[in-house]
């Protein structure tokens, strides 16, 4: 099985989909001739041509809106927002047109929106966001967030093949830092959670880049057996896996790189408080970025994003409770 980077896995998934299904169409700014701001689609235009690897005008609302139109007449558009932050320009089309269409009119909108998200490299307030919570809150939109190369490929295949609008949160920081074995060919990873490391004394729940942070932070916390649950799918949320981890471990730390208020972790915490209450041996603890725009200068940015030390400290404290 080949070892690919997270980015290579995404490229491989897109390539396999373009080859397997003539309805698939990539749309985004600078993805064609330039190969994409992060080179995800480097070389694609040579194999698939400018019609299927489309360089669009600078118009996020236009990208999402036209993708919706193409989707309802039988295509499978995969839109790229150059940075997840720019989805705010296409918010209306995604939430009001795409998200609500099936409920209102019975008309499916099979679009995928790739959202390079997250910070950690001095991107500043407009190139570092994790906007998934906005879309978890909008009915009719699915949201997935892979943390490994294999999941990046498998979840992207599933997202493209899903008949609903799917936000694919690909974390920029993981593009070249995460490598792993990735099966060749098309395979679909279900929208469920994954136990990244089993344990019994405490479970850390995280997604995206925070899974790597969680694993590193809890490799050895005073010898305790710490489980790490990779949520992977935010809508639908894998309630069964979450409650199962709570039942076995009884102590929970939830990590969000997104701003704390109403982040995905807040929803997980509420779920646990309601349905996992009887299994808790301590308060549900959250580690998240405070409610600030992500700052640019490295000491400021490192101070706000959840790092290994902060996560380890929270685990240590809860284990002793």
């Amino acid at each position, binding site marked *: 099985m080949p070892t690919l980077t997270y980015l290579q896995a995404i490229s491989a998934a897109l390539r396999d989909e373009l080859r397997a299904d003539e309805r698939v169409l990539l749309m985004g700014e600078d993805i064609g001739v330039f190969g994409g701001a992060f080179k995800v689609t480097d070389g694609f235009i040579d194999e698939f041509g400018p019609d299927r690897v489309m360089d669009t005008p600078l118009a996020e609302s236009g990208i999402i809106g036209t993708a919706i139109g193409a989707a309802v007449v039988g295509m499978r558009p995969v839109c790229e927002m150059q940075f997840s932050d720019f989805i705010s320009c296409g918010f209306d089309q995604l939430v009001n047109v795409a998200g609500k269409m099936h409920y209102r009119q019975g008309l499916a909108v099979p679009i995928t929106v790739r959202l390079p998200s997250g910070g950690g490299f001095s991107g500043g307030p407009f190139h570092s966001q994790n906007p998934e919570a906005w879309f978890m809150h909008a009915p009719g939109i699915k949201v997935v967030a892979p943390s490994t190369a294999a999941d990046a490929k498998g979840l992207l295949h599933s997202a493209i093949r899903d008949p609903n609008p799917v936000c694919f949160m690909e974390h920029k920081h993981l593009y070249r830092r995460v490598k792993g074995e990735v099966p060749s060919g098309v395979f679909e990873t279900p929208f469920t959670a994954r136990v990244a490391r089993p344990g019994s*004394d405490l479970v850390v729940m995280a997604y995206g880049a925070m899974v790597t942070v969680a694993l590193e932070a809890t490799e050895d916390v005073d010898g305790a057996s710490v489980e790490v649950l990779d949520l992977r799918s935010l809508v639908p949320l894998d309630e069964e896996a979450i409650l199962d981890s709570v039942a076995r471990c*009884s102590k929970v730390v939830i990590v969000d790189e997104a701003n704390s208020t109403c982040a995905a972790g807040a929803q997980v915490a509420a779920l646990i408080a*309601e*349905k996992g*209450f*009887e*299994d*808790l*041996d*301590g308060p549900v603890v959250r580690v998240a970025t405070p409610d600030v725009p992500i700052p640019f200068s490295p000491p400021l940015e490192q101070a706000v994003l959840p790092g290994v030390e902060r996560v380890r400290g929270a685990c240590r404290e809860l284990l*002793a*409770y």
Partner: protein
Amino acid sequence: MSSSRTETLVDVTMPQMGVSVAEGTIVAWRVEPGDRIEADATIAEISTDKIDTEVPAPVSGVVAEILVPVEETVSVGTVLARIAPAGGGAPVADRPPPLDGVTAGQARTETPSPSKTGNGHRRYSPVVQRIATEHGIDLSQIEGTGRDGRVRKQDVLAFLESAAAEEPPLHIESPYRPEPLAPAGDGGGLSRIRRQIGEHMKRSLDTTATCTTWIEVDMSRVEAARARLGVTALSFVARATIDALREHPALNAWLEDERYTRHTEVNLGIAVSLGDDGLIVPVVHRAHELSVEGLAARIRDLADRARARQLTPDDVRGGTFTITNPGQYGSIMATPIINLPQVGILDLEAVIKRPVVVTDAEGNDSIAIRPMTILGLSWDHRALDGALSAQFLATVKRNLESVA
């Protein structure tokens, strides 16, 4: 809202002229009681914040009464007048009822009743309380190693493990404890295990208000399915019972002194005969998670281990309901004794072919030969009533008679 007097009268109501409009004022009435009016003709003029407009009559007929005078302001939906419909066609349907608050599809989990917190000043977390209740542990006995001496889950589990070495199991005694020296005397008398079983049975009858209810079940579909799957009828009865316990959770409970605790999980005890050594009731924990085949496998395993004297104390603890199945010796009914502190026990006797009356779709009766059995439920009248017991049995019967 309409009384019998107005049953045939049609209401004319204040319309909502815009989403934010909440009331309107009558400016003028175009009719008087007794006047004839045609459907859609103007019956009144009204004024609202947004617009002055007219109200058309909903039906043709005769104006029966006018309820709101000119210059009075009323809320949207208020009945302004009533018309007795005549000659203009059927009365228009009433305003459809508003949507209720939506709770469809959002199943709520049951919150179990809280258990005792032991010493007043100590607080125990939900999982610690739950484990303590399940195993009958007095939390005040436990040293806490958490912050400020808090009792952690690990502390309770550790306590259980060490206690397990000394304390006897809560329910039917394990037969593996060494026999004391045989009592002096005639070499006869009851064995220790026999005496302990007897004491438990006697205590049950003395404590509970035991009643027994029976129901007949047509086991045709079970017989067909079990032949296909290669399992016993007991597995099907177990699964049907579990489903019935989920529907009637009052029977999946413990009653200890005054304390009544319902359980969401079903830990199903299955009575296993040990021949001369009496009987023992190993427990299928979390039985609700198992299919018929899963149950069959677990029951077989527990029975094998029971007879080979390989059960652990955990295997006999924590049962929430018991099934007893003495086997196909031909006996048809029994009055089982409740396994304290549970509140119900189900007895499965022989399955015997009988002639029964069957009714077809057109209502014709005929005689058919069906494998029938009689299920007996002994239940504690302190915790529930006969009606509920009967309903429970009816559910078990329904489940068994609709096996795929």
